[in-house]
């Protein structure tokens, strides 16, 4: 990335503000996810409302940042690293907003389970683990964006495979549970939804990391060809 200043200091300020807003939005999503995971473990269903409220703020920020991107493009016609930054930010906020939606889904699922008088932890012990992994990915992807650190972004991208494997293993466990004791089906399905949401948060974090690589290096590494996947 280019850290020299623009001839127009206003342009520098616009870009700085844009980056700050993304980090602010990322921070909110991180809190949402972290609170949702805590609610899962502790049964603190009172935080669910807060998570849902935060989601509105996240949505507003997504709109505001996209709007700022459009204005910046119209006013400055950014090129090269500036263009990649603005373009990348517009994509990052989409992924962050969706990660926030997933956090909301987790919170609502947790509320359903506890309100039915169940304890999710006795079913899906693995869920807490995979959720911590996804949250770490999200944090690191935001750090990678803040520092434009492609090595860290690469770590996030690699971590996603582990989350996917764990998700499948949780699915198998829960299916076994349901077959052994059909009374657990309702709660098991809620837990599957939660695990699925966690897995999606990992995917969004991976996407953010891919956008960071694009911003810094100009390489679009989404959808690599089959042979290089190995």
């Amino acid at each position, binding site marked *: 990335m*280019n850290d*020299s*200043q*623009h*001839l*127009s200091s206003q*342009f520098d300020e616009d870009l700085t503000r844009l980056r700050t807003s993304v980090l602010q939005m990322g921070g909110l999503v991180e809190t949402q996810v972290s609170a949702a995971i805590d609610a899962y473990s502790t049964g603190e269903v009172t935080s669910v409302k807060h998570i849902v409220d935060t989601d509105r703020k996240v949505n507003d920020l997504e709109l505001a940042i996209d709007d700022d991107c459009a204005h910046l493009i119209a006013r400055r*016609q*950014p*090129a*090269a*690293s*500036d*263009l*990649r930054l603005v373009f990348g930010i517009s994509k990052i906020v989409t992924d962050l907003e969706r990660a926030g939606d997933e956090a909301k889904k987790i919170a609502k699922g947790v509320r359903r389970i506890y309100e039915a008088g169940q304890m999710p932890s006795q079913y899906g012990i693995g869920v807490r683990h995979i959720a911590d992994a996804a949250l770490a990915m999200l944090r690191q992807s935001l750090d990678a964006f803040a520092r434009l650190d492609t090595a860290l972004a690469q770590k996030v991208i690699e971590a996603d495979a582990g989350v996917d494997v764990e998700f499948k293993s949780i699915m198998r466990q829960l299916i076994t549970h349901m077959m052994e004791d059909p009374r657990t089906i309702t709660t098991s399905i809620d837990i599957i939804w939660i695990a699925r949401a966690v897995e999606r948060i990992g995917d969004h974090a991976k996407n953010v990391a891919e956008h960071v690589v694009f911003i810094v*290096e*100009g390489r679009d590494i989404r959808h690599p060809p089959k042979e290089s996947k190995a």
Partner: protein
Amino acid sequence: MQIHDNPPLKAEARNLNFYYGEAKALKNINMPIYDKKVTALIGPSGCGKSTYLRSFNRMHDLYPGNRYEGEIRFFPDNTNLLAPEVDPIEVRMRVGMVFQKPNPFPKSIFENVAYGLRVRGENNKRVLDDKVENALRGAAIWEEVKDRLQEQAPNLSGGQQQRLCIARALATDPELLLFDEPTSALDPIATAAIEELVHELKKRVTILIVTHNMQQAARVSDYTAYMFLGEMLEFGKTDEIFIKPKDKRTEDYITGRMG
């Protein structure tokens, strides 16, 4: 960039140096000009892009003390445009030029376009009529002037004058057209008309264009060269240069940063 998907060459600068007297204005330029493509030359004022452009039609020969070194090879015949034995008048028949400010001759619209043909000794009225019409059509100005070909060219609007100058350059069927900031004196509408025209023209002629307008370079060109202090720092596909330039100095220039 893969070598094998490069289009054929129309011209190529090889180890080109240029001196205004003692001052070295171009430093060892090596650059391909691809056939029927638009190549944009960008760079800050004084970087040598106009000097480079003008080497292609031997404009510098008009002033004493100017000196070339190296070659500009012109294809398919592989002529060195800069060779002393090559007649600059012949070069200018094959390489047309359009300047920053429209500079029509103080003659009629018709005579402006016919001028180059008459210099070539063409006096047949029917041939002249045909070629003038074709050139005016090629420059997308025929519909606007066909009923007033005998009017004085300087009475046209700036944008029309510039397209007339393009028609004048086209009349002699050049193989390469040089544009030196062709829209810097025009309003956005006339500019759009010229850019549209450049897009049409590249179907039949190779174009080299100097522009200070980054967006224009990004819009009209297939290849872009970034020049700085007489050197060519970066040459590549326009799509790549404006998304991911290789040289930090190119990046600073196109994103409007201080060097």
